């Protein structure tokens, strides 16, 4: 069972997406901000991270950069999830180190395909 770390500050979206992922057989742990990502990665060792970009404090881009530059766990697959839909937003997320990019509203089937393609890489 793949463990997914969902980083999302919006309570409704966090609840909705985590429930949908659990229904599809994933184990989901949640973070509300970018600060707690590193500690959760360390303690929970997730297989994939779903990262919202607009977060209070450390945003998703910065959280991704920090993870990529850290000594350990720096190659966990990260999928950016954001309501910013411009090409430049995707480019920014990719250059920060995200492996994939999905816009909100989430197309669940497409997101699941990406999770499956990336997990364990």
């Amino acid at each position, binding site marked *: 069972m793949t463990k997914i770390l969902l980083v999302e500050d919006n309570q409704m*979206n966090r609840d*909705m*997406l985590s429930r949908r992922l659990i229904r599809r057989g994933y184990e989901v742990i949640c973070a509300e901000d970018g600060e707690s990502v590193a500690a959760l990665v360390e303690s929970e060792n997730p297989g994939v991270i779903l990262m919202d970009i607009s977060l209070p404090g450390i945003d998703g881009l910065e959280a991704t950069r920090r993870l990529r530059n850290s000594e350990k766990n720096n*190659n966990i697959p990260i999928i950016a999830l954001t309501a910013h*839909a411009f090409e430049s937003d995707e*480019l920014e997320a*990719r250059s920060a180190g995200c492996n994939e990019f999905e816009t909100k*509203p*989430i197309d669940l089937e497409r997101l699941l395909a990406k999770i499956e393609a990336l997990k364990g890489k």
Partner: protein
Amino acid sequence: MHKLLERQLRKFFSEQLESRMADKSFSDFCLSIGQAYTSHQDDRELLERALELSSRELNEKNQDLQRARTFAETANKAKSSFLANMSHEMRTPLNAIIGYSELILEEISELNHDEIAVELDKIRTSGNHLLGLINNVLDLAKIESGHMDVNLEEFDIGGLLKETCTILQSQALKNKNKLHYEFESTLPQITSDRGKIKQILINLSGNALKFTKEGEVTLRVFEPEPQKISISIRDSGIGMSPDKLKKLFQPFIQADSDTQKKFGGTGLGLAISAKFAEILDAAITVESKEGDGTQFTLTLNNRVQSEKSKLHKAAHNFLPNPAMRPDTERRVLLIDDDQNAIELMRRFLGRHGFDCISLKSGAQAIEEAIRIQPVAILLDVFMPGMDGWTTLSRLKENAETSGIPVIFTTMTDERSLGLSLGAIDYFTKPIDWSRLASVLKSFERSDCKPKVLITEADFPTKNAFYHFLESIHWQAVEALDTATFQRKISEVKFDLVILDCLNKSIDGMSCMKTLSDCAINQTTPVLCCTNSMNDIDNAELLKGRVKVILTDTQVDTEKIEKSIYEILANQKKVNEI
């Protein structure tokens, strides 16, 4: 009246008439002339004043117009950025609306609550409709603000037709329509923006299927004349009256308001298609008769888009004769975690005389690239450790490796993303070996490529330069601050310097001074992008070697490309003399 004239006339009159008579008549005559003269003078002054007034008025009107124009432009920009923000704000709640409806639909499907499911589906469908609308409005905003990028690539139009039909097959079944496509297998490849053409075809064919019941929709490619290519979408549907045809391409306007109720849709598809066509130097025409079907035709005015390709040829002719590099220096760096892929590549590249050095991940890419100085780097995307996207970004960030061409060789088809991140070309596996060979051939002679020194710090602009310079087989060297600039200028002879004074780390004045003092680059043409003529030495301007592009915001790559061609053309002339 003029004194001299009066005296002459007085003399003439006194010779002709008796003195008293003469005196009287003459006085009257003089008086009337004087009056005429004065009134003429008054008229003139009046006219002059009127003229002055009206020209002042005209001037004010002009200034008003100018102000109104600036205001409109600012307002338009504000509108676009407002729309971009709104799009974000609307997507977030929509995510919850669509997501929760889908979640509950899944959950209750096991409980047999069919009535609730039907109504939930209405919420979900409306959410998706709203999302489509937001996407369309965003597209229009991007077009209006000039942010719509064009990604040119060579592709097979027949293949695109098949793909479009596959996507629309389920929609065709809804109205019991038959969907066909027709094209000759001998059609040439075309160069355009595949994604946008696909969106146009989906919009036009989607409409055709919507307004046709139990009929046929046919997509056909043909060449109306050499160099042009047309795709027609013909349906046997309800057709339109001439009145309705006129309003067709305006945003938010469907043929009539009943149409919206009966057939749905946002009314933006055609407006966007028309704008896309405009950007791609194409046109959409329509023929229709009420009750007798409609035919839309998309015509690409130039099968091979942008006249750059023609100019490329001119640039090639100007290049010095290539001298082959010694074999030991024809190195290629392969970065791929799949050993089989590396072996295959090594064998293939070996046959073409390339020496291969391979890495299993991107982590050591920079060190290795600096050490072996490869002519090109072939890069996979998915790799353990550092993946291809990150590797490419790192390579492009490092001044010592940013000039090495990188080619993606990978399973995932993300061509436009790869190119926008700075790759020179993109190959999906299985690899088209003959195309790869021809691309690599173009790098063989990089030693004698003309060199350009660039000082551009803005990443997208720099990226655009690299693409452009690679495409005309020029080599770019970077200097991002004044000290580096001065060092490079004194070490290497350049064929062109592009000096970007908008880069804060570049001191335009002292760079220009270095250029005029330096012996090896004394005649090198300079393209200077600046917002002030103060940076420019007048003597250099007069000698004609410095060309200035005045701009106060961002460097305009199109303008620079044009100027480079002009410089090339001039040099060619000089060489011929």
